[in-house]
């Protein structure tokens, strides 16, 4: 069944070509994109089931393994694939709904569908790639598509915000490429499984430089403090569905690359402490930024940065419990953060703005919207029994089990960050939803069609259902973490 492995990359790419050919027929474009992403989701789910017996490996083009491109679908990759495919599908439906409601029927942006599918292909390629250069190519595919999406329409604010984003991303790509050059110079291979053996043989200093270069490149993409300043500046200006999918997926691809390289290529280095310090500062700086914001989109961008710190905390611990919690938290965070940005898009349509001083009384005038916001907000803040609480609990338990001073500091930091997240979101709730409607200037609400509300509702339900599925999902995360730390299952699957 290994022929399934390249499909999550190939199908969106072919779909992109087909939608590009059909640029005059928006309806055909929609049918193609939706069916391609549905198929991707189905294949990903099938791969998740199949990869339980061990990683599936495909040598693309029939080249022998260390020479050619290898795609590796292990449990971590397939788990991320399933969640990302589900999220991209929901966001696509939402954006179709938005396009319909705004009467884009006559003047649709014909580049949206092809670009969106190419971005999906980049994300899946990054998850599946078994060598560093293909990972780089995956990053470039998704970044190139994201440059187009973030400047969609080419208005002045988007061009300005897009410029920052593009230049910062290009810089991180250059650092990544230089890192790849150095890795190849010192080991003579880029295949991850082969790197496992050869990197262990290198002197400590050389390993540290290579690790530092890769970490720097991934750190910019994952928005880790102090490399995070570009994110709250550029994300909020993009259209709501674009911001949602960027917030949910693109930073997590960086986190995935960090998890992969830290566990597989550079285990047990001295960089763990550095990661922990970066995690703590990301959490605190991010959430303090969120507390100071008066616009929901910017506020959510800052909470996004701060919660990357939680993921890094688990990676920095480098224990089985820590990585398991980080994997679980990543899945939770992809779903919840995307949902919140989609709901913000709905709020903008209803209230005419996302500035907190212009919104009010939405709990009375739009009760459905209130429910859709309330559940993921509590989930993000980590109120029991939501999955955010379970993920944070797992991280805190792993931190306590580690027992070092730094991990206790991080345990305290996570508690403070959770409280401040709750405070920031409660402020949004109080001002936008609970305030009397009479206090605010009323704007004529735009209609929110069912096709926008139902994908959002589906994601809210999925986020809430993570609690119900937490038992099996958590044990899956633990087996993923066990495999990652053991390293041998991956290496043996690629180099039999």
């Amino acid at each position: 069944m290994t022929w399934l492995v390249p499909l999550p990359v190939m199908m969106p790419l072919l779909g992109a070509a087909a939608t590009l050919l059909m640029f005059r027929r928006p309806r055909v474009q929609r049918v193609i994109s939706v069916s391609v992403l549905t198929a991707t989701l189905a294949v990903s789910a099938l791969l998740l089931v199949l990869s339980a017996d061990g990683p599936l490996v495909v040598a693309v083009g029939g080249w022998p393994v260390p020479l050619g491109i290898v795609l590796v679908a292990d449990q971590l990759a397939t788990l991320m694939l399933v969640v990302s495919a589900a999220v991209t599908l929901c966001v696509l439906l939402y954006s179709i709904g938005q396009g319909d409601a705004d009467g884009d029927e006559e003047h649709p942006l014909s580049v949206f569908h092809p670009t969106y599918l190419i971005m999906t292909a980049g994300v899946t390629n990054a998850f599946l790639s078994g060598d560093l250069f293909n990972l780089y190519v995956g990053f470039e595919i998704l970044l190139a598509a994201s440059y187009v999406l973030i400047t969609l329409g080419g208005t002045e604010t988007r061009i300005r915000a897009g410029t920052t984003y593009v230049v910062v991303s290009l810089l991180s790509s250059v650092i990544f490429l230089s890192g790849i050059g150095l890795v190849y110079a010192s080991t003579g291979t880029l295949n991850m499984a082969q790197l496992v053996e050869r990197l262990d043989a290198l002197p400590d200093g050389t390993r540290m430089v290579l690790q530092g270069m890769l970490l720097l490149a991934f750190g910019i993409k994952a928005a880790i403090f102090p490399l995070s300043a570009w994110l709250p500046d550029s994300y909020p200006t993009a259209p709501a569905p674009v911001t949602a999918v960027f917030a949910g997926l693109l930073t997590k691809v960086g986190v995935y690359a960090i998890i992969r390289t830290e566990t597989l290529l550079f285990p047990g280095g001295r960089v763990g402490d550095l990661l922990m310090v970066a995690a703590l500062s990301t959490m605190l700086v991010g959430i303090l930024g969120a507390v100071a914001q008066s616009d929901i989109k910017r506020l959510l961008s800052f909470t996004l940065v701060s919660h990357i710190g939680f993921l890094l905390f688990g990676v920095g611990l480098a224990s089985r419990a820590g990585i398991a919690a980080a994997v679980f938290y990543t899945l939770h965070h992809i779903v919840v953060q995307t949902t919140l940005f989609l709901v913000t898009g709905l709020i903008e349509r209803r209230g005419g703005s996302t500035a907190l001083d212009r919104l009010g009384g939405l709990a009375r005038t739009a009760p459905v919207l209130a429910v859709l916001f309330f559940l993921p907000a509590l989930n993000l803040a980590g109120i029991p029994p939501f999955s955010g609480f379970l993920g944070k609990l797992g991280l805190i338990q792993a931190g306590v089990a580690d027992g070092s001073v730094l991990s206790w500091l991080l345990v305290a930091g996570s508690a403070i960050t959770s409280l401040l997240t709750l405070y920031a979101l409660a402020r949004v709730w109080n001002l936008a939803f609970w305030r009397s409607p009479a206090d605010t200037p009323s704007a004529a609400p735009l209609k929110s069609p069912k096709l926008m509300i139902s994908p959002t509702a589906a994601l809210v339900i999925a986020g809430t259902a993570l609690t119900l599925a937490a038992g099996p999902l958590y044990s899956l995360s633990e087996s993923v973490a066990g495999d990652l730390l053991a390293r041998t299952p991956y290496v043996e699957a690629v180099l039999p």
Partner: protein
Amino acid sequence: MRPSIVLLIAVGVLFAAGTTLLLERTLTRVLLGVMLLGNGANLLVLASAEPGAPPIVGTADTAEMTDPLPQAMILTAIVITLGMTAFLLAVAYRSWRLSGHDEVQDDAEDRRVRELAERDEGSDAEELDADELDNETLEETRR
């Protein structure tokens, strides 16, 4: 492996010049910086292989050939840099069409912080004035 020192110096110069240009405010210079950095990175990848004969079958003994893999990677990287350069040029042109220049503006947060700082300075100055006034009136009353 002994890398060529000339190649490494060229990488260093390209990186240095690219970084300097990247710190500029106009997008066209940033673009030139990105191009230099990209070429520097390409040369760095090229330097990762041992120098040797061209890796074309039949032209030389396989043992004397250089490693073709970095060259394949550079080709990919060149194509990617080309695409990104074209996109950045389009962004710079659009920015020029919209605002008449291609300078990268401060973001909303920076502007807000600056406004707050200016207001702060203003209020400080007022307080100072008020203090001076108070002192003056105090001195007058003393007289």
